[in-house]
């Protein structure tokens, strides 16, 4: 059993980050910065059609252009490229199309690669794309989720015979964890139904994806802007049939991911194949437009919600029916994303009957996959919106309704209707703190007063009392969900002869600050200075095993593996220290980096032991000359961060403009290793969640062309679009891991979207509005006010929410 970090000086301290020194001076190693001898450059030709047969590709002109070494089409790669992996077959009968990295006969979304050019320079490669002539025979596009599953629907993949990939169902009566939901609805005193639309989003990490492949060594080395170097290596081996030990993957500095770089991409496979073919290093770096059109998208679901309750507010049942847009192909974990939400719709509430059914649907759009929160933001949004709608129906304060139904702090551990066991939590404490910081009662008074006098600017209060499951994940739970891998993580400690420490982690940071946080944990554990710890990650050569970074798993799983390795180091050092001190190992205690003979001041430091094993002149019999150790940690449970977020929004009823007046986030992420990093994660998460509520949407026109294909159209918020937040924490330690920590990376994004939309609806509910579809642009809000609209698309659904330069008629639902 791993023991908690020693109560030292480091854990809990707001250490400034080790990572920063390079990043603030431009000494960075982004993949696109790589420049190798003889390196060639690749450019991709992408389909402008969403759905078409390729009838001919003429590359003859491109091949003659200056500096061009190779031009390849799907036909050239058909035998070698394999099919891109999907690691999550959610049902046994799931339909999954072949997923070529380069389209061979047919394109199924606009942006799919149809040809590639390798040239001496990036400019020559890009120029040569003009010399490729592709003939397409257009096929009908499939864009709308509901139309896609109609009987006479056009099919994305005709050979599958349907646009339905799979239907996944959880029913509490069948599972024996609760009652039958239809009975609960049938006998309920109050039933509320709503349909919500989770718009399509784009992760929009700041660093465009880039790949360099060097085939000149014994191992083919791939540098990639990826979150998952270990998974990538394994999948390259399995997809292409190359021996795994002949591939090395390096994720150098990676500029954000948010799930968007949790992928095995067509571009990685194509670059690998062409570098190997040409025997020279090849680099490919996508443009932003390519990234927005072809890197995987997120969300995109229709959520039909039914909640049943008694008049006193007791919730008696919840039914969730989803349609989830897969896009054209199933990427790495595409089908599992909505399923991750299945366990979270019941959220923090005691719900006696629950039914969840999700149908995954193919469309001729960019594939979807993980985006910050992956399944859990959708679930949290829907249930938190429903709690507000139910409160309104019952005439109750929405916070009171929540409190009536939530799990009380003395009821933990609590096994939910969806089978998870929440290890700890204190929703009362977080809510009390949030109310206090927010001045909940004062703002309610102001709201009533403004309503009274018919102010043109109305005030709304939005609530989100969320929890989430993260720290993916216990391997056996993932196995039970048919996921293709485990959820463990690897860590190792190398004790250098000078007493310095190298920490190897299978986590793969791309902005999270692992180097700093892991150093704090190890410094306390081994009693060495923070500065003496070096954290190595993101290279399959230096960190040989790992499952990488996503799902808020690095601290709860990855750091636990490191801590466990540190325990082994101490255990290995102990008999050697005893030998050095001429005492029994049983008489030694380890603290502050020193082995001390109990009850004396005789001691030796762990650095002295490290030097002694290096010399190895005088070790106890049978003891190996090393105190290095590694460990693999597999958690027994997820971690369950929670919190209460309160948002005050002012809505100008004459223009539909929304202004966030104040936002309070009180999060409980358990024990905190570095409060500075935690606060930063919360800030960034909040903005991404708020951006879903107010700004962002990937919009396709009626021919399946992405209309938000630049950062001028896809509205990633700027500093001027955001307020400052008030953040605070309560601290209920997780009982699942020895550090007492929970994940924090996704919490802000999961919590904030419903808080904002609830605030907007609350501001204008008295005008007959019970929903505004996201993103809540001024036009949509205004339209809702005019029509007393109930959840509708229509004007404002187009790029930029009707505020952009594009034709409003072109916006596809």
């Amino acid at each position: 059993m791993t023991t908690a970090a020693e109560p030292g000086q480091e854990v809990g301290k707001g250490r400034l980050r080790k990572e920063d020194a390079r990043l603030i001076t431009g000494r960075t190693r982004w993949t696109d910065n790589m420049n190798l001898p003889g390196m060639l450059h690749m450019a991709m030709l992408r389909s402008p059609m969403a759905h078409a047969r390729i009838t001919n590709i003429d590359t003859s002109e491109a091949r003659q252009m200056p500096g061009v070494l190779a031009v390849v089409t799907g036909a050239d790669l058909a035998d070698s490229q394999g099919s891109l992996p999907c690691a999550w077959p959610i049902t046994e009968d799931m339909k999954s199309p072949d997923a070529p990295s380069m389209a061979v006969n047919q394109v199924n979304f606009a942006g799919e690669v149809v040809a590639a050019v390798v040239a001496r320079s990036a400019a020559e490669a890009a120029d040569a794309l003009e010399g490729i002539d592709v003939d397409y025979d257009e096929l009908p596009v499939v864009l709308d989720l509901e139309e896609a599953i109609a009987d006479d629907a056009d099919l994305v993949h005709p050979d599958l015979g349907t646009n339905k990939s799979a239907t996944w169902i959880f029913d509490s009566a069948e599972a024996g964890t609760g009652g039958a939901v239809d009975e609960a609805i049938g006998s309920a005193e109050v039933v509320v139904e709503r349909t919500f639309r989770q718009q399509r989003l784009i992760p929009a990490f700041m660093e465009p994806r880039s790949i360099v492949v060097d085939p000149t060594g014994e191992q083919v080395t791939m540098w990639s802007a990826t979150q998952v170097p270990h998974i990538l290596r394994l999948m390259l081996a399995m997809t292409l049939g190359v021996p795994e030990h002949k591939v090395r993957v390096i994720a150098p500095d990676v500029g954000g991911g948010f799930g968007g770089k949790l992928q095995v991409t067509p571009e990685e496979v194509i670059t690998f194949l062409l570098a190997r073919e040409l025997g020279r290093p090849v680099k490919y770096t996508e443009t932003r437009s390519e990234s927005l059109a072809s890197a995987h998208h997120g969300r995109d679901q229709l959520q039909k919600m039914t909640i049943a309750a008694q008049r006193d507010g007791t919730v008696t049942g919840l039914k969730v029916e989803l349609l989830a847009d897969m896009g054209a192909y199933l990427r790495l974990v595409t089908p599992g994303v909505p399923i991750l939400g299945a366990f979270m719709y019941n959220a923090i509430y005691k719900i006696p009957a629950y039914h969840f059914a999700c149908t995954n649907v193919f469309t001729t759009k960019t594939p979807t996959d993980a985006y910050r929160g992956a399944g859990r933001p959708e679930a949290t949004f829907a249930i938190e919106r429903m709690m507000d709608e139910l409160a309104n129906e019952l005439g109750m304060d929405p916070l009171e309704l929540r409190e009536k139904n939530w799990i009380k702090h003395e009821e933990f551990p609590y096994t939910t209707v969806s089978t998870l066991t929440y290890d700890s939590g204190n929703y009362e404490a977080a809510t009390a703190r949030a109310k206090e910081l927010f001045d909940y009662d004062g703002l309610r008074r102001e709201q009533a007063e403004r309503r009274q006098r018919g102010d043109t600017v109305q005030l709304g209060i939005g609530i989100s009392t969320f929890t989430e499951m993260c720290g993916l994940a216990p391997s056996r739970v993932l196995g039970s969900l048919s996921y293709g891998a485990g959820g463990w993580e690897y860590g190792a400690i190398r004790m250098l002869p000078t007493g310095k420490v190298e920490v190897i982690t299978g986590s793969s940071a791309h902005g999270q600050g692992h180097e700093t946080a892991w150093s704090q944990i190890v410094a306390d554990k081994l009693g060495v200075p923070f500065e003496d710890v070096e954290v190595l990650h993101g290279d399959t050569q230096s960190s040989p095993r790992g499952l990488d970074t996503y799902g808020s798993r690095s601290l709860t799983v990855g750091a636990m593996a490191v801590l466990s390795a540190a325990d082994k180091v101490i255990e290995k050092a102990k008999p050697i220290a005893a030998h050095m001190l001429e005492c029994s190992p049983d008489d030694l205690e380890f603290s502050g980096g020193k082995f001390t003979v109990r009850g004396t001041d005789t001691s030796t430091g762990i650095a002295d032991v490290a030097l002694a094993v290096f010399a190895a002149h005088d070790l106890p019999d049978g003891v190996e000359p090393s105190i290095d150790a590694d460990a693999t940690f597999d958690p027994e449970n997820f971690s369950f961060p929670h919190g209460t977020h309160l948002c005050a929004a002012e809505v100008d009823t004459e223009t539909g403009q929304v202004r966030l007046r104040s936002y309070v986030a009180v999060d409980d992420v358990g024990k905190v290793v570095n409060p500075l990093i935690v606060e930063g994660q919360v800030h960034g998460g909040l903005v991404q969640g708020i951006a879903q509520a107010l700004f962002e949407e990937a919009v396709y026109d009626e021919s399946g062309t992405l209309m938000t294909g630049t950062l001028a159209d896809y509205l990633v918020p700027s500093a001027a679009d955001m307020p400052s937040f008030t953040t605070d924490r309560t601290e209920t330690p997780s009982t699942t891991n020895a550090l007492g920590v929970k994940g924090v990376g996704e919490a802000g994004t999961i919590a904030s979207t419903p808080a904002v939309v609830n605030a907007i609806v609350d501001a204008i509910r008295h005008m007959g509005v019970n929903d505004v579809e996201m993103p809540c642009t001024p036009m949509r809000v205004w339209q809702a006010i005019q029509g007393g609209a109930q959840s509708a698309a229509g004007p404002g659904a187009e790029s930029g929410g009707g505020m952009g330069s594009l034709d409003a008629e072109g916006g596809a639902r």
Partner: protein
Amino acid sequence: MRITVTVDGTTYSDEVEPRMLLVQYLRERLGKVGTVVGCDTSNCGACTVHLDGHSVKSCSVLAVQADGCEVTTIEGLARDGQLHPVQRAFHDNHALQCGFCTPGMIMQSIDLLAENSDPDEQAVREGIEGNLCRCTGYQNIVRAVRDAAHEMRPGAGPEAERFSDAEMGTQAGVRRS
């Protein structure tokens, strides 16, 4: 076309294609890879550098337009091992996570502070509006810039960052970011 440009204190003379962007020149010809490219529509600001003391998005400037000019990149800010106060403030305030937007964000912040030595929160938010960050939520960036403003008073930046009002806007044809 032949151009002569001083970048971070070193003078270079090079033959460049007329279509080459300043950011391509910096990265591909000079190896100044601290300055990065984040988009192709000059929305993100990751490529922001100073051209004769004023911030520009180097993806929106041709290399030939920099002929005879002085360019400062993120790599030229620290002097004698001393960080620029804005660099230090970004570190001290945890104003970066993945760090990809950071070079541009720092260069733009320095420009902002040259124009307004004591910006309030709103002025900072508007001053860095052309630079996108996906990680931090901006709150700590705003804090860092205001923190740096206090550190820098009066004019603590390196020489290259000091310029009078009269010198501003003299780069005809160069788009200010």
